[in-house]
């Protein structure tokens, strides 16, 4: 892989949240929300990040742009470590890395008009004249398929799908290099979901955006991604090309995850292998392989030794990695 192509590189990132308790409110434990995660995204590509709730995918996305201050590891954007930057330098970088949030109801300021919301990125980051600004805002609206009269209206006047369009317009306002999409469609209805996915794909093509696409819906992630990383309890357990991950999942968790997705076809009678039990708490993760409590194949070694992420078939596919003792 050519190093120069890599736009974002996450290196052994850790985000451990402290738990305070006891009489003196001292630290009594840690939540291992993101635990030693590494990956990289090439320019113009999309990496999909899937996992169940509480697996740390949102925390990972937020740690990358320092909405949380990670407790360990490095994040390189164009070769520079974001985590070591001063606030001033980081602010200069913000236009290049933008985020789209899950809940379009909470991520827009209810007291600002759409015009204000979309003008704000220009006010903060670019010194453009008032006239130029309003032109740019109008162009943004048409880019995301919103009517012109939206400018003077407030977020509550819009439906969920339209609000997500506003969130997308805000994210692309400064022509970012990379967008972190945190569950951008999971709050939307089916018929609206496909509209937003189409919009994202279209924008990505037109603007040559790089994307980190975080979602729990594997079908959606597979549709938009080049590569997919599967997370479980703060760690990446499998990483592969989107097609390979779906055709040939190797990690028992990925297999179970794909198997559990309901298929919209009543004739496809499948023997379901249903995963027993719940996801353990990230505050008290199991020793060894974090999946061993729910894995059928687990043996003694899984309980004691943590498997590392490694390439399974170096001859066939030099990208496909999984963390399991039995591969």
């Amino acid at each position: 892989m050519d190093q120069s192509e890599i736009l974002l590189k996450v290196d052994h990132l850790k985000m451990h949240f402290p738990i305070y308790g006891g009489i003196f409110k001292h630290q009594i434990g840690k939540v291992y929300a993101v635990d030693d995660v590494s990956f990289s995204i090439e320019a113009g590509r999309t990496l999909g990040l899937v996992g169940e709730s509480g697996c740390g995918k949102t925390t990972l996305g937020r740690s990358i742009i320092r909405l949380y201050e990670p407790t360990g590891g490095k994040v390189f954007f164009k070769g520079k470590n974001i985590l070591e930057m001063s606030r001033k330098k980081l602010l200069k970088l913000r236009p290049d890395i933008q985020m789209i949030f899950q809940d379009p109801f909470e991520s827009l300021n209810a007291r600002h008009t759409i015009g204000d919301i979309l003008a704000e990125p220009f006010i903060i980051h670019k010194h453009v004249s008032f006239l130029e600004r309003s032109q740019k805002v109008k162009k943004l609206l048409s880019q995301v398929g919103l009517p012109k009269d939206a400018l003077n209206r407030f977020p509550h006047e819009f439906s969920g799908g339209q609000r997500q369009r506003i969130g997308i317009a805000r994210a692309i306002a400064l022509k970012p290099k990379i967008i972190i999409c945190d569950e951008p469609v999971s709050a939307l209805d089916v018929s609206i979901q496909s509209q937003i996915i189409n919009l994202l794909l279209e924008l990505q093509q037109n603007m040559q955006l790089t994307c980190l696409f975080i979602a729990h819906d594997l079908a959606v992630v597979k549709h938009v991604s080049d590569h997919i990383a599967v997370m479980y309890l703060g760690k990446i357990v499998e990483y592969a090309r989107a097609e390979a991950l779906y055709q040939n999942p190797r990690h028992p968790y990925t297999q179970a995850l794909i198997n559990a997705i309901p298929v919209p076809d009543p004739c496809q009678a499948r023997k379901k292998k249903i995963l027993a039990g719940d996801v353990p708490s990230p505050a008290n993760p199991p020793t060894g392989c974090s999946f061993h409590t729910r894995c059928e194949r687990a043996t003694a070694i899984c309980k004691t030794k943590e498997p590392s992420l490694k390439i399974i078939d170096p001859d066939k596919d030099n990208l496909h990695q999984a963390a399991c003792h039995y591969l």
Partner: protein
Amino acid sequence: MKLTDKIILRVEDLTVAFDTEAGKVRAIENVGFELEKGTFLGIVGESGCGKSVTALTIMRLLPQPAGVIEKGHILLDRTDLLELSVEKMQKVRGNQIAMIFQEPMTALNPVHKIGRQLSEVFQIHYPELNQNQVKKKSVALLQKVGIPEPEMRLADYPHQISGGMRQRVMIAMALAGQPEILIADEPTTALDVTIQAQILELLKTIQQETAMSVILITHDLAVIAETCDKVVVMYAGKIVETAPVIELFQNPKHPYTQGLLNSIPRLTTKPKTRLKIIEGMVPSLLNMPAGCCFHNRCPLAKPICQTTLPMPAHFSKNHMVKCHLYSGD
């Protein structure tokens, strides 16, 4: 109006309106369907299409005084549920029809232990049981819904167990009165896929064991495909299509059903291609278009669709569509 042996519940011509500040809003209009004994009936639609209101009306749990049942009948055995007194309806709830809700955290009482919440159901439905018997029955029920160490769980508060377990407790509470009908309103929407698979499997097993009839309300067509026998598709407060599940997925007739099925990204869809979409969005209930409620988003709309409500067209005994394409106009 009698029900045949096969049909356990029939909803006829049900219209429910809400009084809001902006005026009267019809949440559901002329909704009618039949539930066959021992089957899974799915009601599918997007948010605001009236599927939950339909369920709440059957249970007579509509918010009062805002919700007004303008017309219609809900027949269970030989009685019209809408004509029952409050006391008699109370007997029906839990004993004959039970309901589970989407968000088990808000449906359970956070300040009472699970044991106490479960025993409350027994106290109401089986007042003759003593404390010991109630506890035994509670443990047996929790075991039946697949909760490990049921004795220990009785002493837990709802926040101490996971979302999947909470939904299992809800199902246990619903089963306590041995109902003939279970209404499940988005029972797996708040859950992860692997937990969703567990809960759906549990519902299927229980349904087969007890020969219960289930109404499953969901927005997820894939969940419908995996569990239901018959499907009702709702849009903007109206039923647009009813069909057996295989027929609906293989041969959808209504443009809305077709659009919905086409717009879901599947694992087999070619990646990064444009998904087929339904243009526009669901009309506001306050400002419903005249004629067919789907005409402003329908790719096949004709002039008649803007003025006249489509009449039901039947394709086979169980496949009904309300669309002008098929009504011969």
